[in-house]
């Protein structure tokens, strides 16, 4: 299948993967950076789902968060700023056997990569897209991002960011063929983990916006929210993950949400105070682009040659 060599066999049964099998060297983010929490969550999911490291690909753009693949001991593609999604889609297009994780920043995805974002949502290929939203350009040192709060003082807007921020979940919910949109925060490991598991389980493109602390540049942006759980609104029911009772109790605000209702999801996505977290929307029935791109994947050389001769015939005189 898929042009695999005959002599290759999947050896999964003989192997058991531990967390270490996914740990690719010491992460070099700033102390307290939320990226680390996400890394840990993904490594745990890989372990819990026993994903063979060689069949797992982490794709990213450029930014602090896009260093993600370097800290995974899987295959990785740390490409160009804003271009994680086309690469990830290309990887998946003819390799449906690979598990694809995408790490992208608010600048990477929502600014320079915005066009690909619109279209990757529409392609709806089976992958988890993690938007590390720290409301700032981290790697280039403190410039305004599309999700920076209006008035935020940055190096490019020293008198405060001019415009109201873009809302990544609301925008995504307006794109055609959207199939999974969730929101979570890096500082609640249980919710983060559970949400990413849901994303992983969904067949199609799972878009997860992760509010991510950047203590170096935007410590103030999520500080309140982090201290005061009442600023979060836990979505429950529907496709939302079941949290253990202890974790669930830490959320004073909870709301049952029908994640199959697009209009409801859009309404919820507009909310800020408290900020909804959980699965906003899911539609398991949306067509996936790989259903088209994988056609013919297993074709034998003999069949290809027959096909080729047939094509040559069409031009022959």
């Amino acid at each position: 299948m898929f042009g695999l060599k005959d002599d290759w066999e999947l050896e999964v049964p003989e192997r058991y993967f531990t967390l270490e099998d996914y740990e690719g060297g010491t992460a070099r983010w700033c102390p307290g950076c939320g990226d680390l929490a996400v890394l840990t969550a993904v490594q745990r999911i890989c372990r819990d789902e026993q994903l063979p490291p060689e069949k797992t690909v982490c794709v990213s753009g450029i930014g602090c968060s896009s260093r993600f693949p370097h800290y995974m001991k899987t295959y990785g593609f740390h490409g160009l700023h804003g271009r994680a999604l086309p690469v990830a889609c290309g990887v998946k297009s003819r390799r449906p056997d690979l598990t694809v994780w995408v790490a992208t920043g608010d600048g990477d995805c929502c600014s320079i990569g915005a066009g690909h974002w619109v279209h990757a949502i529409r392609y709806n290929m089976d992958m988890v897209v993690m938007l590390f939203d720290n409301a700032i350009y981290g790697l280039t040192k403190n410039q305004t991002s599309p999700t920076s709060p209006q008035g935020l003082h940055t190096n490019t807007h020293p008198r405060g960011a001019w415009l109201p921020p873009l809302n990544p979940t609301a925008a995504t919910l307006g794109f055609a063929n959207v199939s999974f949109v969730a929101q979570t925060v890096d500082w609640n490991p249980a919710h983060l983990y559970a949400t990413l598991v849901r994303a992983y389980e969904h067949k199609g493109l799972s878009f997860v916006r992760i509010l991510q602390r950047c203590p170096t540049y935007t410590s103030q942006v999520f500080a309140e929210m982090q201290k005061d759980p009442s600023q979060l609104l836990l979505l429950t029911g529907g496709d939302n993950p079941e949290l253990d009772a202890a974790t669930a109790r830490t959320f004073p605000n909870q709301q049952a949400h029908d994640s199959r209702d697009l209009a409801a999801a859009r309404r919820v996505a507009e909310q800020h105070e408290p900020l909804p977290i959980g699965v906003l929307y899911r539609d398991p029935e949306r067509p996936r682009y790989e259903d088209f791109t994988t056609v013919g994947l297993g074709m034998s050389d003999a069949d290809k040659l027959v096909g080729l001769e047939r094509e040559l015939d069409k031009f022959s005189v």
Partner: protein
Amino acid sequence: MTSTTPGAGATAARPGKAPAQRVREHIVEIVSDSGEGAQKAGQTYGAVSAKMGNGVWTVEIIPAEIKPPARSRAGASGIRVRVGSEKVTNTGDQADLVVALNEQVLYGRIEQKAYKPGTIVLLESKWAKDPREEVRRDYAAALVEFRALGLDVREVALEEACQQVAQDVRVGKNMFVLGMLCHITCRDLDRAMEEVAFVFAKKGPAVIARNQDLVRAGHAFGEQVLEQRYEIPPREITRRMMVLNGNQAIALGVMAAGIEMVAMYPITPATSVSHHLASAFRGVGGVVHQAEDEIAAIGFAIGASYAGKTACTVTSGPGLALKTEFLGLAVMAEVPLVFVLVQRGGPSTGLPTKVEQGDLLAALYGQPGDTPKIVIAPATIEECLHFVVTARKLAEAFRMPVMLLTDANLATGVQPIPRPEVAADWLAPPLDQSPWQQGVTAYDWDLDTGLSPRPVPGQKGGEYVLTGLAHTKNAKVAYDPDSNQTGCAMRSRKLAVFGESLRPPQVHGDAEGDLLVVGWGSTLGSIEEAVDRARAEGQRVSALHLRFLSPLEPGLAEIFARFRRVVTVEINYSDAPGAPHVTKDNRRIAQLAQLLRTHTLMDIDCWSNVAGQPIQPGAIHAEISRRLQALRGES
């Protein structure tokens, strides 16, 4: 002399069976408003000729607008067919015979220097009787103007004649014209009937029969139109041939090369490669991805290639511009990729449907930093097919992008070529998913050659992170001086190593002489034809055509040294030598010439233009003569 029916300004004449004059070649054009079927008629005419064993080059005349208004000067839609006894390699000089369905469309062609004094123009005469006064006036004025230019205009009551057989003249006239041309140029009528049956096969027997009747009627009418007939004796066909254009050849090459993914974004004149693949690719298990833009297209292809799949992207100038950054990444991270660039007129949006060879330097040097890559340029439609196969092999062997530069001239030119014998080993080997060898790094550069094996996702133990940052052989990001120097050297080294497998190019003509004409890409046919003509006149001129632009084929300096003068002929911009303010010192020269100068330090001259037209052999021949004469003056 002309039409069968008395029409305004048409002289009645009834020649008998016209005598056939033997010619070595003959160029016809059919020009009309768009939608009149001129192209179908011409293609069929070309196919009939190819089947007879003639050399053929067909090229469509495409208006700038999608559907230009009727009778508009810039709206010429049509086709040119050059038929010869020998192999025909280019569109040729000015036409011998033109069938024009109205007079206005001729203006554009005249502007493009398609005709010469003496070109016979069979012009639809109905406009002389048009109810609109301005039409009659324009028609009359055109007749005067065209004749003043020396065109041999014959008014022909085509529509009137066609009406007698056609249900709908507007739809049927093209086949009538086909028949007429078959008569005039002695094409085999039976083959024409066969070909018509083939072309309309999907439409059913009634349509076939109706069109065959039209061809027959046109054939009969042809007798009455022109006293001359032309015979272009064909050669016996010894090999199985295919008739196709360069873009179709590339599409077939993609399939034959075992490429399984083409990611593209529509752009003229590259798009038709993907049109063809979109319908045919499935037959060999491949897929076309129409991306949201060119950046995404190349990114998608690179992603697929990273994942071990053979991938290709196809574009033209503006698309190349957008792919610049990813192309640099592919070089840096050593991702195999076949990059087909069908060049068109630039800069910027430029002349989207016209030919230019203006992207050579952008391909070589366009990406910031040092980006060694293989750049090759097919010179014929046949090479369009085969070079894709080569490109894929090289991309994988050298773990780098390979660029294939063609142009609008190759893309749209149609020619019979030998049908290739495709072999299974052209196809991609199955994806290697065996465990990666322990101890081998992701870029395990052979320090001598720069070559390294490539791990592919799925290979246990090969896990690595591809990055566009400077990196070590372990694929680890590194900012230290030595790592970057080493990485750059290894990537560059591969070109030196590949270059060693190349042989010096063959000189066409004598190995020494007064003048060497150097070209690349689609100009091969015209250049060699021009050189042959000059040589037949006893001139000491030869031609050299380069297929490899990066690395260059070896031995160029030695070859050049055996000629008194070396000049490139290119379709791209160079300052005219005598122009105001232009000196020998500041003259901006053509792109290959520039490359060859820095490479050989020899005084390579250039002769180039950006007229957006294929360079005609006649024009090259004239330039050769001019230069040789100047040289004789010198010595």
